[in-house]
């Protein structure tokens, strides 16, 4: 039978973003795969060189819009390292709390899209409903549902609003109960298990060599998490576990993300207890010194990194963004070979694609 190339994308309900997956099929079996990206390229790195440090803040939100606070915070942390700024303690704890709220919202968005792809529309509606609670909390902090610009260079934009601790604890309690219902829905669904167990296997050594990070790597039996290996902000004072699973398939990545959501609830409770009182922002200089700095964080999708070169003016000389999905997508071929066309949706959905950071 002749083999042929099929285009899945750029407009395809599976893609969640604009990218093209070209697969070579022999009947139903995939023999080659080539992802093509670049449909959302906006030239962010060139725009960054033309704007001042303060003006870049809102643009970094649009890098990965599914977890926008993480990129905002990563940018502010990198600039603070370059300038040698020390931010107040309360700001660090508020940042960690907002990061974990954002992590839960991002994983819920992934869960909603994954369930909708695999046909489990109940999961889509439940996950979106619970995500609204966390978006409301983040809106109370920053004023916006999706792109916050809440972390500023020197701290955070404003202190917690009144009654925020009470609402946050209530939300986390409610969510921990609801998470059990979510798990029952997926674990008890025979079709979901058939579509994810044993599908999309990526072994540990190959994953590390390909540069894969994040839940995809932790689902391949590697307990690697930047929050534990290279703690930033106040993660070294918080007690939590790193989620890891030994099967290297889509089911493992799903379990890793559900566990991460539970751990995030634990972290949020600890931040609310241990947060000290004090100011939340320091005054920052307008000019940055010459030199370079790197900032590394654990994005919900993997290892996010920024490499910043300053040249003594108020604009960066070069700001390079490392997006975790840029590398994980290039590993798509290893995950897809030998499976059927209907498995493409399950495998590519389990990587949690967000094209904003991939294309920049």
């Amino acid at each position, binding site marked *: 039978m002749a083999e042929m190339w099929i285009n899945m994308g750029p407009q395809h309900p599976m893609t969640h973003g604009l990218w093209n997956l070209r697969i070579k099929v022999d009947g139903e079996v995939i023999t080659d795969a080539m992802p093509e*990206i*670049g449909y959302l*390229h906006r*030239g962010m*790195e*060139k*725009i960054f060189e*033309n704007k001042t440090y303060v003006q870049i803040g809102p643009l970094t939100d649009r890098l990965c819009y599914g977890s926008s606070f993480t990129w905002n915070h990563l940018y502010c942390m990198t600039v603070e390292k370059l300038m040698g700024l020390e931010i107040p303690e309360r700001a660090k704890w508020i940042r960690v709390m907002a990061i974990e709220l954002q992590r839960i919202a991002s994983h819920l968005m992934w869960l909603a899209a994954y369930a909708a792809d695999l046909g489990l529309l109940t999961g889509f509606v439940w996950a979106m409903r619970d995500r609204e609670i966390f978006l409301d909390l983040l809106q109370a902090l920053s004023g916006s549902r999706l792109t916050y610009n809440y972390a500023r260079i020197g701290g955070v934009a404003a202190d917690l609003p009144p009654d925020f601790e009470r609402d946050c604890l209530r939300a986390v309690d409610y969510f921990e109960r609801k998470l059990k219902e979510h798990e029952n829905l997926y674990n008890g669904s025979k079709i979901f298990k058939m579509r994810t167990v044993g599908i999309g296997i990526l072994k540990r050594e190959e994953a*590390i*060599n*390909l*540069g*894969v*990070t994040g839940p995809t790597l932790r689902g391949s*039996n*590697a*307990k*690697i998490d930047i929050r*534990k*290996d*290279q703690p930033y902000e106040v993660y*070294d004072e918080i*007690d939590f576990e790193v989620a*890891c699973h030994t099967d290297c398939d889509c089911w493992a990545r799903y379990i890793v993300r559900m566990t991460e959501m539970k751990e995030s609830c634990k972290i949020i409770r600890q931040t609310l207890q241990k947060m000290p009182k004090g100011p939340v922002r320091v005054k920052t200089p307008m000019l940055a010194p010459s030199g370079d700095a*790197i900032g*590394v964080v654990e994005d919900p999708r993997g*290892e996010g*990194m920024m*490499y910043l*070169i300053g040249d003594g003016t108020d604009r960066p*000389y*070069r700001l*390079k963004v*490392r997006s975790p999905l*840029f*590398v994980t*997508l*290039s*590993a798509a071929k290893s995950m897809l070979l030998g499976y059927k066309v209907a498995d493409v949706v399950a495998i590519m959905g389990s990587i949690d694609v967000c094209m904003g950071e991939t*294309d*920049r």
Partner: protein
Amino acid sequence: MESSSNRVEPVGKKELSQLVSGFERKLERELPLSIGPDLTEIAVKREGLVSARCNKESILKLARLLRDKYGFEHLSLISAVDWRDRFELVYHVRSYANYCMMEIKVPVPKDDLEVYSVTSIWKGANWHEREAYDMMGIVFKGHPDLRRILLPEDVKYFPLRKDFQLAEED
């Protein structure tokens, strides 16, 4: 080689620095001996970060040595920078087991834009190098599939070079 999954937790801050700085001092001592005069300015910037400068002829040898002997198994990032008199490639590689990241700066003169590709050593370098070619025009010898990745195929310019200007604010 100790793997990350069986380390003892939690580790206090002081213990961690004593554990790790021995490895960085080892790198600082041994790498110039193995690579020779092509590797210059090696320094420990802070705990967990070693930076070095390497000529582009020896980058492949250095990469192989780092991966096989010292356990740098993860390539994080390859950035391309346009200093006005030369280009520069900055490699960030990480060793999970030793909690160390190494920053290697490779100058690329503007009249000889060819550099050896490290995809044979770290497969994750594939798309990073394609992006460096797409944005700056640096050509990687030995790359399996060097073509544009973010811009359309028929575009002739390299946008991140400093002589390419964006539209001005009005």
